[in-house]
């Protein structure tokens, strides 16, 4: 095939034109093999520019296109679309970044021009060896598997469910609602919680498009975005029944667990009466029965914040606020009660939290900053000994101690992370794809995280995440619409592979499996995201990535450095 490469250099207004001698670049690349035209244009990404390029491709019968302009992050997609419109395969295109990598990094016009020549030549060298890649389309299933029937899972389900989209909501316990069902009120608005949660439960159970599985656990997840197969096992006493279904996406909304205070003997939990956890206190309060073990009403209570924070190494975000909520519960129900809060740091973010704290302080409610704390029980009276900020040792006697423990990953996190091939962060929670740029997506496309399964968070932030997850799914998994898997995918050559499985361990997406008969690794192109890790790690040159083949890179490098 005769190649006809068109090279178009964008002036980018004054951005490139003033810093690079564009005519010199044109002169340098014009004589190269296969280059049928090399010319300049004011602004190729403008509407006229795009029209100009499309006409040029058609008029000159170009087979390949090189644009020397800006970063591929800005306009790679723009120019690939132009190729498509003009009837050439969009992968027979290469962008040379002569703005960020040449014009903007030096005042020296000559150096910038020389580098621009090299980069443009490199793009031409590479594009010669590009091969057309065809976009694929696969059928997708719009249904969603939501794991966890707490507030996060229910909220996501309610947003997602529609006649075109069935939701399978799997809950491990016998009822929906999760940890929130234990709360009397929410902070900081002090709204009645049982009503909010009961409304949600009713909405979920009355929704024809949500199928709820209680007493159920997910036992297998296979497949990929658009085509997952989930298996759920129901634990009905002795009987175990298994159901399987196909879904397009999976939402992990499994919540979290509480740090076990028996792990730190200083708190005396499990050893002394009337030392209870925050959750035990919530239940006691919801039952309207704040009592000591001997049935009497407590006259003094200590609330200890930050329990387990040292061991966990992170702030659990909500403990300060619910501890202050406990102050409100206690003041409301036992007006004469004396309350002492012991904390190491107060966490009061959000626009209304500081106010909530300030309004809760009072004569009979101390906030004491401590360095270390120990609870003892001399003469059957709970005594709190602590070091204050100055290092002085102090003691308090109280009737009841409420421990506000850190939130930690729930027990099923590891198992589900393995099923869905996503990773766990250093703390053991499900790891999001990117802390800032991908807070609810994961390394496996089509698997999302909402709520405390991703890390400690308040009800409002949980709902925000559940809504974000719903938004992600609604915009990417559209009923009746096919999905386009990545085109630039890895391939493992059967004849070169030595079966060492190095690629298998470095792939974050579970793309690679080992064929034990042939003793070679095999990449599943449908789920490959084209990151290239396997190519870099493969010791035997068996793995390659489409559009980044050895030859393409070599040709590019050759022009850039020789």
């Amino acid at each position, binding site marked *: 095939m005769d190649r006809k490469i068109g090279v178009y250099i964008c002036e980018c207004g004054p951005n490139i034109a003033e810093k690079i001698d564009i005519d010199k670049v044109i002169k340098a690349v014009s004589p190269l093999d296969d280059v049928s035209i090399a010319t300049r244009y004011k602004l190729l990404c403008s509407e006229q520019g795009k029209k100009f390029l499309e006409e040029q491709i058609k008029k000159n019968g170009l087979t390949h296109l090189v644009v020397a302009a800006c970063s591929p992050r800005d306009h790679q997609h723009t120019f690939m679309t132009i190729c498509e419109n003009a009837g050439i395969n969009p992968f027979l295109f290469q962008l040379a970044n002569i703005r960020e990598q040449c014009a903007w990094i030096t005042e020296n016009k000559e150096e910038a021009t020389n580098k621009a020549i090299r980069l443009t030549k490199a793009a031409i060298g590479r594009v010669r060896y590009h091969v057309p890649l065809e976009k694929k389309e696969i059928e997708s299933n719009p249904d969603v598997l939501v794991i966890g029937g707490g507030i996060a899972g229910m909220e996501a389900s309610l947003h997602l469910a529609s006649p075109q989209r069935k939701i399978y909501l799997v809950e491990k316990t016998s009822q929906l609602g999760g940890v929130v069902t234990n709360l009397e009120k929410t902070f900081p608005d002090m709204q009645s919680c049982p009503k909010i949660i009961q409304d949600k439960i009713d909405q979920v159970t009355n929704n024809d498009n949500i199928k709820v599985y209680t007493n159920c656990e997910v036992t297998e997840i296979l497949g990929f975005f658009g085509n997952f197969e989930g298996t759920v096992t129901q634990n009905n006493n002795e009987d175990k029944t298994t159901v399987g279904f196909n879904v397009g996406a999976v939402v992990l909304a499994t919540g979290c667990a509480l740090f076990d205070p028996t792990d730190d003997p200083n708190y005396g939990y499990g050893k002394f009466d009337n030392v209870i956890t925050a959750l035990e206190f919530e239940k006691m309060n919801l039952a309207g029965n704040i009592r000591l073990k001997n049935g009497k009403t407590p006259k003094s209570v200590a609330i200890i914040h930050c329990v387990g924070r040292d061991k966990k190494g992170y702030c659990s975000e909500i403990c300060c606020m619910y501890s202050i909520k406990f102050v409100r519960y206690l003041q409301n129900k036992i007006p004469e009660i004396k309350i002492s809060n012991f904390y190491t740091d107060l966490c009061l973010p959000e626009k209304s939290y500081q106010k909530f704290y300030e309004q809760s302080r009072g004569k009979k409610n101390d906030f004491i900053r401590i360095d270390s704390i120990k609870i003892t029980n001399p003469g059957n009276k709970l005594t709190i000994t602590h070091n204050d900020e100055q290092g002085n040792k102090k003691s308090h006697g109280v009737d009841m101690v409420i421990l506000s423990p850190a939130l930690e990953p729930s027990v099923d996190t590891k198992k589900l992370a393995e099923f869905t091939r996503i990773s766990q962060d250093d703390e053991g929670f499900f790891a999001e794809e990117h802390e800032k740029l991908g807070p609810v997506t994961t390394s496996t496309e089509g698997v999302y995280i909402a709520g405390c399964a991703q890390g400690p968070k308040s009800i409002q932030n949980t709902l925000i995440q559940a809504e974000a997850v719903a938004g992600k799914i609604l915009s990417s998994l559209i009923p009746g619409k096919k999905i386009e898997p990545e085109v630039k995918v890895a391939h493992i050559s059967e*004849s*070169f*592979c*030595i*079966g*060492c*499985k*190095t690629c298998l*361990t*470095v792939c974050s997406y579970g793309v690679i499996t080992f064929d034990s008969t042939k*003793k070679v690794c095999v990449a599943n192109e449908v789920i490959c995201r084209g990151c290239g890790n396997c190519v870099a*790690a493969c*010791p*035997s*040159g*068996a793995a390659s990535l489409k559009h980044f083949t*050895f*030859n393409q890179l*070599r040709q590019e490098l*050759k022009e850039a450095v*020789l």
Partner: protein
Amino acid sequence: MNNSSDSSEDKGVVIQVKNTQKETVNDFLKKAMEQGVFDAVLISVKVPAGDSFAYVLLTDKELLKDTFPLPPIMSVQGAKAISSITRRGKGNKKIAAIMRPCEIRATVELTKLGQIDLDNIVLISMDCFGVMPTPSFIKDPEKSLKKFEDAIRIEDDTVMRPVCRICDKSSMVAGDLHIGTRGVQKDAFFIVSNTKKGKDILDKLGLISNKNIDTWLAKVKENAKEKQKKRKQAHKDLQSSIKNLDKFLDTFSHCINCHNCMRACPICCCRVCYFDSDKMKHPSDDYLRIAKSKGSIRFLPDTTIFHIGRMVHMSLSCVSCGSCEDACPMSIPVAQLFSMTADETQGLFDYIAGKSLEEPLPLTTFIKEELSEVEDVHD
């Protein structure tokens, strides 16, 4: 290597030597075959022509009498032999492989690289005193063998290969069983088990690991310490011979591009070496361009980059066995240079190639803190 509690064994079996050490080792193997502990033995023998040694897979126990558990040369790295047998999966019979520690270590590396299935293999190592350079041995095999045996008797390593003279892992126990001959009376040797598999074999043979092995441990430690010192010095000297690019290029300048080093290397297990593949064959215009930019270009091309590429590929698994240097027809100190590099690269990952099956290959793990010493830090 199966679990750490087995590897910290500080007791061993004492075997009394009848006639020669070699015969006693062979008797031990024969007894194990008779009792069905092994069905076959992979061991070195003298070739019929009498001028070299080769590994054989031996099923007739009567042939054990002709074997050489510690041959004077390393004509084939043992790990390559095991890989040839089990590359397509394990067999049904139990095979005992008797090898030097560096061969066992290469076996461990190849197992991690998926080139060996150890399920039905029992790895038995022996204290190694080094091997002679193959080219010098074959000049007069008979005389050389005598020289080798004398050298072992008087513990003189000057006839051994340069990498053997600075080997600090010549008693490293990485397999299932190890035969320790250092620091013992001439009429006995130790057998130490390193894994559950090894222990089970001793149990089946009715051998009880209850003898104090302190004399062996002390001698091994002393030897390793002395060799480490020598190694450090040797590497220092070597480093000055390649300290700049010109010197480095000079060192490899007489390479004839035969790639023998790669073929002899147990770790180089690619189906086709990248440097032999079509990916390295370029159009003549490319060569002309390089010639134009540099004035000239040497042919065959890619001679030095081959060594650098190979170093990048295998240095994390290099066991300093010296096979590459033996195979070099131009006497380039490849093994010395590669093992020096390997010490550095493996050190970056706190990794010792072939030490343990449980330790994953450095490239397959991600540890945030590692490699900080070579990171570019931009504050």
